[in-house]
């Protein structure tokens, strides 16, 4: 029997939440927004070739696992990551790690976790959670998107870890190597934040049509074409899909824009850089525009009108213009840090 107490903290997003909890557990107190920013995780991507449930991939953040990987690299910590061919081996390794007192991160499917509300259970295989102990055949879980800690049976957890399909976790588990944990005083935060900002600005201003601010323009054109290219039912589901990707999947509101604004605010305070505080305020304003965009899209689903798609597309173009200006400003400010 091993039922330790765990200082659970709810966050908006699973991956940044897990990473923040792992860091805090090992003495480095960076909240979710800080982790998200240090990982340069803000993004926009519209990839019509990759389909999820018949809908194109629309993402407001970087690829799954990138937050874990990039935070580790930026802060110089070592993560032990393991995947498993056999579920039994994956569960045995988890048990061993827990017996040694480790806090273990897992990648799982959402669909097979019984504690998720039914409406939230879709086949998404890149959810992240922490296991902090075991009580007989029940695992004690700190799932960062839930208010309280959860329990999950061995059978269900194994199923969730080894669900096959797109982004399959293959039992991925990860622990922080406590012996190589950096201390906050040893970190060059100015350099780390500068690099993270510049990387994110490059990501948002790429010379390709499907990503960053240009990707928003491409999606706007697609939205505008919806009434010509598809029936009304598909158009509604399409707009709904965009809103779900922006709000539903634990983005902290406005497709991670509020989280990133919070990071900019903390960066401004840490580095005493008032220009970053202005960038934060502008990012918040842009986040508010994304919320308006979502409301417009849903209004079009509820009460379709012929000019509706064009209005939704126009709002998206407006946001793309604002984001482009802001990212150019962030690039300038970061270069001077």
């Amino acid at each position, binding site marked *: 029997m091993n039922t330790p107490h765990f200082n659970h903290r*709810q*966050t*908006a997003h699973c991956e940044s939440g897990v990473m923040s909890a792992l860091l805090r557990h090992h003495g480095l107190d960076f*909240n*979710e*927004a800080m982790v998200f920013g240090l990982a340069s995780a803000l993004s926009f991507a519209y990839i019509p070739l990759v*389909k*999820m*449930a*018949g809908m194109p991939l629309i993402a407001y953040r970087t690829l799954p696992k990138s937050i874990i990987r990039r935070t580790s690299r930026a802060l110089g910590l070592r993560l032990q990551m393991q995947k498993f061919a056999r579920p039994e081996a994956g569960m045995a390794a988890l048990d061993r790690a827990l017996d040694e007192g480790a806090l273990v991160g897992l990648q799982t499917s959402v*669909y*097979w976790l019984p504690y998720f*509300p*039914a*409406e*939230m*259970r*879709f*086949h998404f295989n890149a959810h992240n959670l922490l296991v902090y102990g075991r009580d007989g055949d029940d695992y004690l879980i700190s799932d960062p*998107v*839930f*208010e309280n800690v959860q329990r999950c049976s061995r059978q269900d957890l194994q*199923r969730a870890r080894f*669900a*096959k*399909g*797109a982004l*399959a976790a293959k039992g991925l588990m990860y622990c922080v190597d406590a012996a190589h944990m950096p201390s906050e005083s040893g970190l060059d935060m100015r350099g780390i934040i500068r690099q993270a900002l510049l990387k994110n600005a490059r990501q948002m201003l790429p010379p390709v049509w499907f990503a960053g601010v240009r990707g928003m323009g491409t999606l706007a054109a697609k939205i505008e074409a919806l009434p010509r290219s598809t029936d009304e039912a598909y158009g*509604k*589901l399409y*707009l*709904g*899909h965009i*809103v*779900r990707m922006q*709000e*539903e999947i*634990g983005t*902290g*509101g*406005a497709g991670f824009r*509020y*989280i990133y*604004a*919070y990071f900019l*605010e*903390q960066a401004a305070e840490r580095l005493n850089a008032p220009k970053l505080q202005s960038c*934060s*305020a502008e990012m*918040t304003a842009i*986040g*508010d525009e994304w*919320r308006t965009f*979502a*409301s417009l*899209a*849903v209004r079009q*689903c*509820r009460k379709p009108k012929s000019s509706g798609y064009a209005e939704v597309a126009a709002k998206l173009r407006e946001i793309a213009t604002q984001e482009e200006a802001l990212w150019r400003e962030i690039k300038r400010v970061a270069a001077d840090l």
Partner: protein
Amino acid sequence: MDEKDIPQHGSKIFAGQKKVVYATRNGHYVAGQSSGWDDESFATEQAVQAFDAQTEAAWQAYQAGTHSALYYLMWRYRHDEASLAAATGQFRWQLRRHFRVAVFAKISAKTLAKYAEAFQLTPDEIRQPRHEHTAF
């Protein structure tokens, strides 16, 4: 968004849970909580209803004998062709063949086991599924 403007619409899809939404208080960020936002819930419910409608249509098709039980189970477990193919390690054309009643009646025990694993059902439950609205 100001902390006071975080929507608290008591969305039923949250099943009583609240989620974290970031907002400002006097211009500085705090982690707030939301019990739901109507616009967001609408998008979620619309997607769930689309799946439920597909599931019901698939049940009718299974009952009418135009499609196999597998076709119904795919929708009931919130899969589509692409995700079920990936989850069972098969090609989509293989799945589509198995949607045919005559072909599905003769699939091997090995193939049936792949479906059994993907749905967490016994082979018998796959051959003759019960009519349930959702998998939960």
